[in-house]
């Protein structure tokens, strides 16, 4: 098993014919992902790396049975794209786009809940299950090794660094999911933890958090009550000043909430093992066995 994406995942890429779309369709196909369709209005009949392009998600779904969408369309059109995918029956959406207005994200996250669909992101690198040859997103393929550690993270490059250091030690991953750096995201640490807890392939979980909001505090409380698998964590932004947005839209200490100190304290209380440096995660997991 794995979480959210596996061998049954059939991907339609929204925003397939742009530079990013073309490049990452190629990368996903090389990873072994079943990319079955692309959507760019007005480009029906074209192909990208042999993948057929459709004008609408509905047509793509009817022709190819796609069940998962990768959203690469510009921020201004993302809400429309997500709504379109949800109405076409897509059940898992991975929204890579950065700078989507928060109110738009709030609307499509709630519509997805109403539809019973999973939204990962926005402003995320996507998700990869190396053992299932399924990658939906823009994560670099070379860093993954299949195995039993589940990774969920609010950041991109920092996660690659951590995953890479795990792989270098021979510690493989079941699924690695980038949850996104925005304040409003679809899939939270709690959702990922629940999925990893259920997943027989996952034996330990790594969370990569950062300042802003209370997602880590919420997760810590959830771990205490519901998660039996060991959890390891790294929190970025211990030295970030309040009121400054540290690169990610969601990485801001606002009105006294969202400090690294509070998150570290909550995780410690929940028995989560914390790393001081990103690569120290691999030491902790290795020591645990």
């Amino acid at each position, binding site marked *: 098993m794995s979480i959210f994406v596996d061998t049954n995942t059939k991907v339609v890429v929204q925003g397939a014919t742009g530079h990013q779309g073309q490049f990452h369709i190629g*990368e996903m196909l090389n990873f072994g992902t079943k990319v079955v369709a692309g959507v760019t209005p007005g480009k029906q009949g074209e192909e990208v790396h042999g993948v057929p392009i459709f004008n609408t998600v509905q047509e793509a779904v009817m022709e190819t049975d796609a069940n998962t969408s990768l959203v690469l369309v510009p*921020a201004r059109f993302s809400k429309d794209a997500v709504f379109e995918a949800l109405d076409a029956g897509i059940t898992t959406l991975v929204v890579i786009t950065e*700078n*989507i*207005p*928060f*109110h*738009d*994200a*709030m*609307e499509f996250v*709630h*519509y997805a809940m109403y539809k019973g669909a999973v939204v990962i992101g926005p402003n995320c690198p996507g998700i990869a299950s190396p053992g299932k040859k399924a990658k939906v997103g*823009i*994560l*670099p393929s*070379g*860093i993954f090794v299949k195995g039993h550690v589940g990774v969920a*993270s*609010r*950041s*991109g*490059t*920092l*996660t*690659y660094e951590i995953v*890479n250091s795990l792989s270098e030690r021979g510690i493989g991953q079941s699924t690695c999911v980038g949850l996104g*750096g925005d*304040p*409003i995201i679809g899939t*939270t640490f709690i959702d990922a933890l629940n999925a990893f807890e259920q997943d027989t392939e996952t034996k330990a979980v790594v969370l*990569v958090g*950062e300042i*802003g*909001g209370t*997602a880590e505090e*919420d997760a810590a409380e959830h771990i205490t009550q519901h998660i039996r698998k060991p959890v390891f964590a*790294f929190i*970025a*932004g*211990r*030295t*970030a*000043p309040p*009121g*400054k*947005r*540290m*690169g*990610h*839209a*969601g*990485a801001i200490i606002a*009105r*006294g909430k969202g400090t*690294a100190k509070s998150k570290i304290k909550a995780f410690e209380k929940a028995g989560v093992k914390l790393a*001081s*440096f*990103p*690569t120290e995660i691999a030491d902790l997991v290795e020591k645990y066995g």
Partner: protein
Amino acid sequence: MKLFEYRGKQLFQKYGISIPKGTVIEYEGDHSNLFFPCVLKAQVPVGGRGKAGGIQLAQTREVAKEKLAGIFQMKIGGFQVKKVLAEEKIGVKKELYLSYTLDRSRRMPLLMMSGKGGMDIESVADNLIFKEWINPLIGIQRFHIRGILAKLELEKDEEKKIAPIVLKLYKLFREYDCELVEINPLVISGDEQVIALDAKVIVNDDALYRHPDLVAEHQELTMLEKEAKEKGIAFIQLEGNIGVIANGAGLTMATLDALTHYKGKGGVFLDLGGTDDPEKVKQAFELMKKAKPKVILLNLFGGITKCDTVAKGVSTVISKEGIDCPVISRIKGCNEEIAKDILKDAGLITAGSLQDAAKRSSDLAGW
């Protein structure tokens, strides 16, 4: 983007929320529209201006002149006062608190009200703050407003006057893509009017394109931060003297944290993001140089972005423009060996690990 109080109040007015009569004073000698008595309020994008002396009462023109001179000299929370709002003085019978924020955990607008208006909401006891979450799929409904107003123990005719304001503020919050709208205090005046005495409005930067009527002032940013924003570079000035350049916000934060571990202090947060475009790398380095750090720490992880292409950009900038402080680099990931060679040739110090790089940077910076 945080709006000045007077800009926030203009929005309130547009939505039919009463505000005190007032005028904006643009410079010290601008007295012509003043009326008396008036309250002079420094316009700065930070809280705590009352305590700092940024709010003063003036009974006469003479006093106002003197006080304005003082206020225009002030720096509050690091921000020079450039505008002053002069308002009529309102007789206050009751002070309430009203706000909408985005609840990140529930991913919904959160309506908060309290009978304890006029003070910092964080200092108000939790059991005196009332909350309603509003599912964006249904929007605000009468039951939300009835529910929260009932907890405030107001008189019936007060409730009747406040209910429409709760509704109007929700509309403003949603239509202007706000992260926060706060009226603190919302007052019931001596003559039973409901008036917004203050306005705190933060609009989501990513939605500013839909609001051409709002001038993007970003007055909460420093000059260099503003320049970076125009160029689309994530750049933040901090208190220390070590400039950090990394790719990815999380990695940049983690690098700053590592410095602190070795008693160093980050002076600049610069996230290159996913770019390996030499022009962007050049702009980033130029900005960094303007911030005059004592040491630059470059921390890269190459994934889709290859280490060597970023390294090439960096070495081109350094060889062409020169750099007058030591640059310590730590490179990991795709094509790291090629990248290390390029950077070594450019005269950079290469470190083996983040810890090593952070320690050396901190030592060099003199911490």
